C-alpha cells in the first residue's frame, strides 16, 4: 500500500511535469500567434477552437501568453534554485565540515535570515535593486541560500565523523577532496528533495512577485502578472484568470508529487 502510493505519486508527478514541459516546448514550436500581438477585434474573445484559452483585454492570445509565462516562470525558478543550491552548498559544506567560530557566526546570521519570510527578503532586495527579471532571480536566489545552507551543513556535520571520512583522511586525502568527492555524493539524496521543494517555492515566489508587479516587466507575459490583470475582469472573463492559475498549480503539483515520492 505504502510503496504503491509512492509509485503512484511518482508516476503522476512525472506525468504532470512531462505534460507541462511538452506544453511549453510544443507551444514554442507550433505556429501560434505572438504572445504580445494585439488585436482589438479579438478583445475578450471566449475560448473557442481557434483561440483555445480565449483572448485578453487587448485581444492577445491567452494560450501563447500562458506558454510564454510558464516558460519564464520555469527559467526564473531554475535560476533561483541554482543560485540557492550553489552558494548553499559552499556555505553549508564549509561551515558543516570545519565548524568553529565562523560556523557559529554564519549560522547565527543564517538563523536570523531564515526567520525572515523569503518573500519579504526578496521584496527588500527588489526595493534595493529595482524591479525586473534578473533582479528577481538574484533576489529570490539570495533569499533561498539560507535554507539550502542549513540542510547541507546538517548533512556535512553528520558525515564528517563517519568512518569513511576518517579513512579518507588517513589515506591523506585533502579536505577539498573529502568534501567534494566523498561527502557531497552522500548528501545528494537529501539535496535532491530540497531542490524539488525549493523549485516549488521558487515558482510560487516568482508568481507572487510578478503578481505584485515587481517581477517580469510588461509587455512580456508572466503568469503572476496575467493573474493580477485578469482580476479586474474576473466576472467578465473568468477564463483569463483560470488558465494562468491552472498552469501555476500544475507546475507546483507535479514537482510536489515528485518530491513526495522521494520522501522516506
Amino acid at each position, binding site marked *: 500500500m505504502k510503496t504503491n502510493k509512492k509509485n503512484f505519486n511518482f508516476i503522476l508527478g512525472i506525468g504532470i511535469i512531462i505534460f507541462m514541459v511538452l506544453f511549453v516546448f510544443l507551444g514554442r514550436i507550433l505556429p501560434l500567434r505572438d504572445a504580445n500581438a494585439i488585436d482589438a477585434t479579438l478583445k475578450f474573445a471566449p475560448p473557442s477552437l481557434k483561440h483555445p484559452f480565449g483572448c485578453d483585454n487587448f485581444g492577445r492570445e491567452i494560450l501563447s501568453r500562458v506558454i510564454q509565462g510558464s516558460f519564464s516562470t520555469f527559467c526564473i525558478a531554475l535560476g533561483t534554485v541554482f543560485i540557492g543550491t550553489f552558494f548553499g552548498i559552499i556555505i553549508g559544506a564549509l561551515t558543516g565540515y570545519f565548524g568553529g567560530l565562523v560556523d557559529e557566526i554564519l549560522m547565527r546570521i543564517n538563523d536570523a535570515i531564515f526567520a525572515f519570510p523569503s518573500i519579504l527578503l526578496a*521584496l527588500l532586495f527588489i526595493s*534595493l535593486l529595482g524591479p525586473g527579471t534578473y533582479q528577481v532571480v538574484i533576489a529570490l536566489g539570495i533569499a533561498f541560500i539560507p535554507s539550502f545552507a542549513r540542510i547541507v551543513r546538517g548533512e556535512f556535520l553528520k558525515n564528517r565523523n563517519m568512518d569513511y571520512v576518517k579513512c579518507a583522511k588517513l589515506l591523506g586525502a585533502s579536505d577539498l577532496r573529502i568534501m567534494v568527492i566523498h561527502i557531497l555524493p552522500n548528501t545528494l539524496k537529501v539535496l535532491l528533495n530540497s531542490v524539488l521543494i525549493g523549485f516549488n517555492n521558487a515558482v510560487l515566489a516568482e508568481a*507572487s512577485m510578478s503578481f505584485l508587479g515587481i517581477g517580469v516587466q510588461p509587455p512580456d507575459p508572466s503568469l503572476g502578472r496575467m*493573474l493580477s490583470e485578469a*482580476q479586474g475582469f474576473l466576472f467578465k472573463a473568468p477564463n483569463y*484568470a483560470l488558465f494562468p*492559475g491552472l498552469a501555476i498549480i500544475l507546475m507546483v503539483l507535479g514537482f*510536489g508529487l515528485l518530491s*513526495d515520492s522521494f520522501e522516506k
Partner: protein
Amino acid sequence: MRYALKKIVTMMITVIVVTLFVYIAFNLISGDPAISMLGTNATPERLNALREELHLNDPVIVRYFRWLIALFKGDMGVSYSYRIDVSTMIFDKIPVTATMAAMSFILMIVISIPLGIHTSKYQGGVLDRIIMILNQIIMSIPPFFSGILITLIFGRILKIFTPGGYVSYSNDFGGFLWYMFFPSLAIALPKATMAVKLLRGSLISEYNMDYVRTAYSKGNTTNGVIYNHMLKNAILPVITFLGMALTDIIAGSIIVEQVFGIPGLGRILLTSISNRDYPVVMAIIVIISFMVLVVNMLVDIIYSLIDPRISFEDK
C-alpha cells in the same frame, strides 16, 4: 523560565542583526536622502543645511542607533513622498494586517486539526483518499490565486460578499470582520492542507507505538486514545510547522491584500517600493520582521511548555 529568558535574549540579538542589516543596506543603496528630498537642482548650501539637520554627516553606526532608539519611541522618520510622519501613515494599518494574520491562523487550526485526526483515523478509506487528493491539489494553489478563486465562488456565484467592498474597522467592526474572513480563508487554505498532511502522517506513525497498544488494552476507546494519549505527541511537529506557517501568513498577507483591495501594510509597502520611499519601506519591513520574530519566540516557548524535553536538554 531560564529557557524563556534565553529565547528572549536571542530574539533581541536577532532584532538588532536584522535592523542593522536593513539600515545599512538601505543606506548603501538609497543614496543621499537630502538629494532625494530636495531634488538634484538644489544648491549645495541647502543640501548641506539639510544634511546637518538630518544628522547625515555622522558615522553610520551612530545614525543606526539613533534611528533604532527613535524607532522604539515610535518615531520612524518622515516619508519622502508624502512629507508626513511614517508612524501616522502606518499605525492605523497595523491592526488591519494583524487581524488578517490572526484570522488566517485561527482558520488554519480550525480546518487542519479535525481533518488531520479524521483522515488518520480512517486512513485508506474513501473519504480519506478524497480528502488527501483534494489536499494535494489545494496545497499547490498560491494564496493570491486561491483569493481569486474565492472571489469568483463567494462573490460571483454565491454572492455573499462584495469583492473590493472593504469596510474599515473604525466604521463597522462586524462588517470588517466579515470582509476579512475571505482573504483570511484564501491565506489559510493552502497552509491548512500542509498541516493536515503533517498531522495525519505524525498520528499514523504513532499508531504502532507500544504506549498506544497499552492504552487500548487498558480499555480506552479509539477517541480516548487519540485525544488523551496520541495527540500530545503527534502535535509537536505540527506546532513547529504552525509557527513557520504564521511567519508565511504575515508575509503572505502583503500579497492577498492586493487581491481583495485591503488598505493594510502590504499596500503601503508596495507603493513605497515603487516610489523609492525608503523610510516607509524600512519601517514596514522592520515592523513585519518584528512581528515574525516575536511569533517565532512565542512558538519556541510554547513548544518547550508542551515538550518538557526541550528546556530540560538546555539545562
